[in-house]
């Protein structure tokens, strides 16, 4: 069943985009209803997940437009943090300390992802949380492959800088 198969990836995506649990649940349900209503326009030569995420992305953009959510431009970076300390997480063995550090790092990553500009966050979530390929993302956003790769690179580096910022 479509819902069972895609509810987790859609919720992961929308949850990270709208950042409120209840809103994300409502929103995801709306997206599935839109998908159901538009099934007639789906063309099988495209991957279903690509089509579904395109609908979800359009819904999120509409939501932002209605809410007038401020978005950063792709050229706008947070403060340069070249001199910040790098993350010091030992990688040798999965000790208790390592587990604790990993959990802490996850929390920091969660907070840092929320700080990414929406346009970069969307691509980053698709790539590193939903596991979409660069080609799929280029198709969804109707952008050249190089642009997508470049934006995801920017997102990762921005994320790294945000992680290095002192709490």
């Amino acid at each position, binding site marked *: *069943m479509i*819902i*069972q198969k895609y*509810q*987790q990836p859609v*919720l*992961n995506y929308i*949850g*990270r985009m709208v950042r409120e649990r209840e809103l*994300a*649940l409502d929103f*995801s*349900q709306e997206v*599935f*209803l839109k998908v*159901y209503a538009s099934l007639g326009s789906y063309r099988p030569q495209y991957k279903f997940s690509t089509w579904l995420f395109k609908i979800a992305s359009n819904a999120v953009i509409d939501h932002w437009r209605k809410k007038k959510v401020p978005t950063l431009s792709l050229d706008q970076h947070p403060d340069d943090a070249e001199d910040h300390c*790098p*993350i010091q*997480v030992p*990688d040798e063995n999965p000790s208790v300390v390592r587990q604790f550090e*990993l959990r802490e*790092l*996850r929390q920091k*990553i*969660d907070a840092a992802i929320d700080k990414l500009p929406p346009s970069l966050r969307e691509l980053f979530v698709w790539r*590193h*949380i939903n596991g979409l390929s660069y080609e799929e993302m280029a198709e969804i956003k109707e952008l050249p492959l190089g642009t997508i790769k470049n934006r995801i*690179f920017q997102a*990762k*580096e921005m*994320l*790294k800088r945000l*992680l290095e910022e002192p709490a």
Partner: protein
Amino acid sequence: MNCLSLERLYACLEGELSSAESRDIEGHLAACPPCRNAFEERKRMLQAIETLPGFEVPPEFSKGIIDRIPLPAKAKVSFVRWLAAGVAGFLALVAVLSVIALATGQNFSQFFIRFNRGLWSYVQEGALVLAKFAKLVFLFLKVVGQILGELLEALGVFGSLIGPDAQVIFICTSFLLILAGGFLWRRKFLVEKNHEN
């Protein structure tokens, strides 16, 4: 020795390079501490991202969607379609009768005449049954009318026996009882309907 670009480090971490390219990078990392450090930092970040827990899906999530899917509206059949269906049915009947006539080796006109006679006798019998049914309904209504007449007469006698105050009380009580009965029946009906849904 030129240091590696961050794009190449990410490409290596995400397994997008050929094995030869990956080996080259590994060789460089072994000899270049700044690149190795940059590589390890990014590797740890991507590993931590991969282990981020997913969004918790409530058990009733999919049911909520299915419940919100609008039911398809009942299709209205137009008069033309009804007419077309009637004509098609008639033609099908003629075709079946023709096949029967052919299969039994009978003359077409005689076969249709016999069929029409048979059909007419059924119509006559049906009309007789309908007439008897109508007569029964008429008799039933007549009996109900008589009973109601008797009841009204009895009420008149009853009214003459009691005083005007008692008459008002009786009428009001009857009215309230009828209202309460109607309310209870409606409530029971609604509860049953909700249970069915």
